[in-house]
């Protein structure tokens, strides 16, 4: 259960609170996850006074503060597919409080937005030390990540991207999600979601690589109560082929 609530006024104060051994302390963005019941006693460190909610166009990338809400992102990226994915990810009420770093730290493999961020090769800036780690490198070890560190920024490269998903209903969480991103140097990256604890990177190669085969392999064991692995493989392969074909169509 939550036994302590703190609202630090500076990053240094927040890091000092997170570094405590007792009680175990966890950073809180919007609170939509942390406000739920806990098995263990924890202190929550509310980041709302740290002014980490800015979104900046920094040339070749977007620099997004960790506590920028999904509603802010939706507004900033209005009329793009990223905005559609944000709206797919969360309803209006949750968008108003849910933060980007909170989503990165807690969303599971069925998250459309986390799948897209992985496809886009988003990176995370950690404090202390201004350490930059790619989302793809961090996600597999998310549960083992030690305390006393804080995501303060998420960087999104400016690249062409596509997203497609299959779900039971248009608003349901996906059972298959595919995000593809293409760089100007023909780098191609494909991430798949709709299954498991976190989305999976299926391909980081170049245009012309077999994306359909890569996602087919990524979903080889993706069997759960929502869909068979064979279904996921087939659906994802078709979606990936379609997205890559759209990139190819852009060039002509």
């Amino acid at each position, binding site marked *: 259960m*939550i036994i*302590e*609530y703190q609202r630090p006024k500076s990053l240094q104060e927040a890091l000092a609170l997170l570094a405590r051994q007792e009680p175990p302390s966890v950073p*809180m963005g919007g609170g939509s996850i942390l*406000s*739920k019941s806990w098995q263990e006693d924890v202190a929550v460190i509310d980041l709302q006074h740290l002014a980490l909610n800015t979104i900046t166009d920094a040339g070749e990338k977007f620099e997004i503060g960790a506590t920028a809400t999904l509603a802010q992102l939706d507004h900033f990226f209005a009329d793009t597919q990223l905005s559609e994915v944000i709206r797919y990810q969360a309803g209006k*009420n949750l968008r*108003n*409080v849910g933060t980007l770093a909170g989503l990165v730290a807690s969303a599971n493999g069925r998250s459309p937005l986390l799948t897209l961020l992985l496809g886009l090769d988003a990176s995370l800036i950690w404090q202390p030390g201004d350490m930059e780690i790619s989302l793809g490198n961090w996600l597999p070890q998310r549960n083992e990540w030690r305390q006393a560190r804080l995501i303060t920024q998420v960087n999104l490269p400016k690249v062409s991207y596509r997203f497609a998903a299959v779900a039971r209903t248009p608003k349901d969480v996906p059972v298959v999600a595919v995000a593809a991103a293409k760089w100007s140097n023909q780098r191609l990256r494909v991430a798949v979601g709709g299954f498991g604890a976190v989305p999976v990177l299926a391909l980081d190669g170049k245009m012309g690589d077999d994306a359909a085969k890569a996602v087919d392999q990524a979903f080889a064991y993706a069997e759960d109560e929502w869909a068979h692995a064979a279904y996921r493989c087939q659906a994802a392969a078709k979606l990936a082929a379609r997205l890559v074909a759209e990139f190819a169509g852009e060039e002509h």
Partner: protein
Amino acid sequence: MKITLEVNHKKISKEIDPGMTLLAFLRAEGFFGTKFGGCQKGECGACTVLLDGKPVNSCSLLAAQAEGHLLQTIESIGENPDQGWKKTAGLSLIQTP
């Protein structure tokens, strides 16, 4: 811990557990228009209130998080629809996000 929340332009100070949700706080203070019997997971919107004018799920926020923000429940905006819900993003008694 002691918090002071501004609910419907009225300040309420109270000693609470740090883990108390905003929904539990409002219900304890008699704002029964904020519904308790919803999903409790932030999905159904039955517990919607306005936080600084924006709809949020009160079951998914800690009461302490709302300190320093203006809260409006259905009791407030229902009394003055021309100043209230007609000018908001569309709060209704039960709102599916």
